[in-house]
């Protein structure tokens, strides 16, 4: 049976095995390659997307778990052509280096700010456990605080 999900506001009937991780359904079935594969075991966060607004690691999430839910990927974070405040802060602070981890980090931060609009440093430490091999952590932290302080279009 097809899996009914809404991805970035668009309805899809996914004809994949229920246990196929959402990551691969997004990337290979729907062609949304902004969500990245880094480890496949929920250890790095490169595959983070929002599931009904909450950050989840899609590499271990069966597609069936997204049935009837709303998925937001990095491609759907901007609203009406306006970048999300996390994306804007990321540009302002020139966070990405290679960039490979950043879709996942940005989604994780968007999820964190939806839960905790103004996180403390400790809350950031607890909430953001993504790996960035390029070591952009200091800039991420500044950008998170900056995004939290900004009056954002999208939240």
């Amino acid at each position, binding site marked *: 049976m097809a899996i009914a999900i809404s991805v970035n506001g668009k309805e899809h009937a996914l004809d*994949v*095995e229920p246990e*196929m*991780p959402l990551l*691969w359904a997004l990337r*290979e*079935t729907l*062609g*949304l*390659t*902004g*969500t*990245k*594969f*880094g*480890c*496949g*075991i929920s*250890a*790095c966060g*490169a595959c983070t997307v929002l599931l009904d607004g909450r950050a989840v690691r899609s590499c271990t999430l069966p597609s069936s778990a997204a049935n009837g839910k709303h998925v937001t*990927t*990095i*491609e759907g*974070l*901007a609203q009406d052509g306006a*970048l999300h405040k996390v*994306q804007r802060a*990321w*540009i302002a602070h*020139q*966070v*990405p*280096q*290679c*960039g*490979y*981890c*950043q*879709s996942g980090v*940005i989604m994780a931060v968007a999820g964190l700010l939806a839960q905790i609009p103004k996180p403390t440093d400790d809350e*950031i*430490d*607890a909430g*953001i*456990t*993504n*790996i*960035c*091999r*390029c*070591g*952009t*952590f*200091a*800039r*991420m*932290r500044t950008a998170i605080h900056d995004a939290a302080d900004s009056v954002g279009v999208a939240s």
Partner: protein
Amino acid sequence: MKSGKLKKWSRRAFIGAGTVAGGGFLLGVAGFTFAPSRYSLVSADAAEKGQLTTWITITPDNFITILIPHCEMGQGTPTALAMMAAEELEADWSLVRVQEAPALDAYANGYIVRAAGGNYVPAVMARGVDYGAYKLAEWFGFQVTGGSTAVRSTGEYGMRVAGAAAKEMLVAAAAKQWGVSASECTAKSSRVTHATSGRSATFGELARAAATQPVPTSPALKNPDSFTIRRTSPTRLDIPSKVDGSAKYAIDFTTPGMSMLYAAIEMAPAHGGTLVSVDTTPADAMPGVKKVVKLEEAVAVVADSFWRARRALASLKPEFSDAGHGDVSTASIFAAFDKALGAPPDVPKNAAKVVTADYRAPFLAHATMSPMVCTAKVEGDRAEVWTGVQDPLNARSVAAKALGIPAANVHVTNFLLGGGFGRGLPFNFDYVDLGVRVAKAMSPAPVKTIWSRENDIQHDYYRGAALSRHAGALDADGRPLAAHSNYTGGGNGEAVFMPYAIAAKNAKEKKAVHPIRLGQWRSVLNSQHGFFKESFIDEMAHAAGTDPFEFRRGLLGDQPRFKAALEKAAAMSNWGTPLPPGEGRGIAICESFGTIAAEVAHVAVSPEGRLKVLHVYAAVDCGDVINMDSATAQVEGGIIFALSAALLSEITIKAGRVVEKNFRDYPMIHIADAPKVTTAFIRSDAPLGGLGEPCVPPLAPAVVNAIHAAVGIRVRELPIKNTSLKKT
């Protein structure tokens, strides 16, 4: 590596100009004519003939496009290189666009590296010369991004000259049009102006005419004091695409209009091992599976999705030979190191105090954020390859060799790299080699072979493990008489170099071979030797009863660049001011790739022995800085990369194979563990040094030296997690 005179070379030999469709202007540097007797300015159709490294194009719409012969791996290299050209060109930075040059002979950047002088080419690059399958390679056919050379060679000797030449041609075209002397015209912000008559024209308007101007033989370069683009922080050109998901890495490529296949692979766990047997039946029957491909050293499952391929692969129980390495382990390798080192080096008999120490560094994996990926389509004697490498030209010859076809028949498209760190350097292209062989078995279908993280961690070209045995001597006044070392695991003059004025300092390599596959890891051999030599000098300082900063400083009298960097880092960190109990500062300084980096780590160790690195201060002398902000990001990134390794990383070997598999047993630090980093650049008159790597080597010794200052425990083995920091 000492700064030396750069070899003379003819600017003229490398410059050519022509027009592009629509009346644009094209200026580039030719890569073929090296011998002075054979140089000639290339003709206007050189671009069509592929004889030009077309670096600068100006189109009538006034946009400037700069083609960059280096890959973007996250260091902002293309932006920095474009800045160097735009500076000399007097361009309006907002009108500059950047493209990565395709993998063609004409874009080989090897000749630029060579022009910069033999002794200035890091070992990595020298090795990069490819004796492979195609003609130019014999001389200088590589297009590598590594060894921190991009800005130092291509930028300094290619981009600047090209920019300056283009400007002179634009000015000459304007002067001719207006019937005035070129010397009365000025270029600024992509516009040429004749002040006296008030006339001006944009570069775009002048492009067509400029293209017909003679190419200047020796364009004048700007005085650094008048730089307006360099030393600023324009935003990096690649960043917008990296926050909206549109940036394309090799894993993101799909063949347009063709349905693609995916492959998952399992390789012989011991390097050099081969596939003995595999019963393919369980996989054959699984959904989506097209074929199980048996290769000499691996088995691949090809399916219509990567996940299906992986699931089917997991059902197989392939048997591999261990290549006779079944009893190789970390313990056996270090035992061989220990034996090769023998007794500590001799020190002078008249020493008042002798200091000895062994230091140990583990194997390390690169673990680039993006796993290795290669998509290939093989049809007869032709192949298309889509991948991410630090050297597309070498990747092309690897593919050609694997397929037994001429390199000219292979087309490589290179994608953004999800981190390089040396994994994507020439001679490390096993993923291309494997990928094209899998695709050949499925010809003519395009196949994307994606390495799992497990493949990546277990089949890397590792940073070598090493053991180093040191002996030093102090006189009765605490002055050092000797600091010697014997080491295993490789080294070179740059890595073992100690800048200190110590009468006797010999570093000798002792050979102990092992079968673990090695490669270049960010900062190469400096990564181990920085830890060894800067830990040992710290131990000597303590033995002498002198503050470790003052001890080093006192030995740097004839090394002004080192001394300045050391003093700067110490001052930034408030060296010498009191700290709470359990906290300490450690200092270290290393030169690599022409750059001197001094770092101070400020750490706290809890009574339970938990370590937290609070702050790292870096004073960096890389000559001069192109893009201040992305240079700072490189320092920050290098420090975090080095810290993850220093604290946590270790590849261990058992039965000839790598034990670690993924980020759970090869963990990385998170944002919670990341210290504050404060960076200062020192502008010296030294030639431009690298930035991607030089901040790695001093980090580990700065941290272990700080731990010693904090709790008196001397860590002599990396990663630090293997030593208990609980005070007893």
